[in-house]
């Protein structure tokens, strides 16, 4: 694997960590189940997962998160360890949430 991925501008450092996990989860909560469905959870079977995610982040949502207008795409990088990638707009954030990863993995069966 590259030790340092080339990124636009050619100036070296990956510019992916512009968002915090909490910030993105706020966005996810603002977007709600519909947002997750637009990005990744297209199957109705995953609706409970989306609902669960929204529930777990109810506190964050209460922080008056702005509406999340960009689709949100979730990639479970490693279901065993719970490493999850979130993509939205031109941002990417990686976080670890074994519970969420496990729920998504179960829903995908």
């Amino acid at each position: 694997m590259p030790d340092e991925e080339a990124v636009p501008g050619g100036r070296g450092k990956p510019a992916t960590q512009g968002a915090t996990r909490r910030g993105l989860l706020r966005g996810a909560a603002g977007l709600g189940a519909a947002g997750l469905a637009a990005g990744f959870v297209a199957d109705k079977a995953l609706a409970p997962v989306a609902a669960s995610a929204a529930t777990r982040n109810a506190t964050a949502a209460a922080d008056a998160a702005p509406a999340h207008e960009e689709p949100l795409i979730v990639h479970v990088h490693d279901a065993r360890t719970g490493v999850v990638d979130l993509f939205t707009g031109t941002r990417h954030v990686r976080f670890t949430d074994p519970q969420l990863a496990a729920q998504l993995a179960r829903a995908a069966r």
Partner: protein
Amino acid sequence: MSSHREAPEISKDPVADSTDVYAFVSPDKPGNVTLIANYVPLQGPAGGPNFYEFGQDVLYEIHVDNNGNGYADVTYQFRFTTEVSDPNTFLYNTGPIESLDSANWNRKQFYTVTRVDGRGSHTLGSGLACPPCNIGPLSTPDYPALAAAAVHDLGGGCSVYAGQRAEGFYIDLGAIFDLGDLRPFASDHNRFGLSNYPTNAPGVNSTLNLNVDSIALQVPVSDLTRGGWTGTSASDSRAVIGVWTSASRQRVRLYDVNGGQILNSGPFTQVSRLGNPLFNEVIVPMGKKDYWNSQSPAHDKQFASFVAHPELAALLPVLYPGVFPNLAALDKAGTSRADLEAILLTGIPSGIIPGFQNYTGATQADELRLNTAIKPSASPNIYGLLGGDLAGFPNGRRVFDDVTAIELRAIAGVTYALVDKSYTPDAAAGAVTDGLTPDSLNVPYLTSFPYLGVPHSGYTPPSI
């Protein structure tokens, strides 16, 4: 080819596939450098109704390194948008396109140019119109006029053009990829024991009658050099810039079956790059080509062994038995090709070629290195430095330089004598060619920006 379809994955993504990069001091505009990055290879001019265009989901960039660390100090970014006037017709145009704002032109592209440097990001121009593709005498009755209108003045002495041009790179792909045949020397090929092998013949230009999409930029030298240097001393390290292009896509692509659209998300990541012609194509092995495309030149040390011991140098004596005995001995001895490392990865230091250097330091990086203090040649030689023309490849690259022959000759050992005076290149090494010259093209280069010729029309029957 130079870099057309040069790696397995990018060959499936022509919109993001860089094919050639040119960088030269503008012969008709002293004090300016022209940078050209070509994309969308091997365009059959009649390829409608969805004619060729840039990807609005691709980030195109031209980079300049002016301190030799392999990272860009100046980057020009190009982002395209497509506007469809009438989605209810299948037609590209519904009448003659006689101007860039013609109501008859149904699918237009516009773009934004942004300069990124140490001072930040600055938009140089937006809403800039591309020309249409050259369709035919009814649809594009005066293509040169359309193209001329698509040359935009960005201010500050900068001009830009993004659109279709005639392919200016000439090469005999059909022979070369047929197990290394060079038609002019076919009788010397080992023939693999086959008896029905063709005899010597002139080269055949595989890119004849094809077009390409060009992003061309002409800017003052001072916009690119370290500290805005504009001196006249070719020995000054500030005279040298390293140039490459890249294309990036967002990391996630999702096919939205309900909306019938493609959703892109996430940060942009590099999927294509190009500095020196043929570097990825000929030097980098297949298993690493797409990985190479993802990397920054700053990390090219990891590919240096492929330059020091190029596969092609070992193949030439096998394919042409007895023709390259000195090269074979060099290969057999396991000699590192310091000449190729200099040409492709660091630039050529002072003291090797009288009056010339394009050395950027010890960092090994595939960049097209241009010494901006060397004036354009009054009598250009298509073999560039090998032909005694200091203004030609590998001092940057002009549109007409025969980079195939130059690199073949270098790999065959001609340039090794520059770093080892005891080495005598094989007689054939200085004569290797695929048999083509700019005369192999049937559309002339232009003498002014954007220099590549008027694209072939889809209507006009291909001619030899």
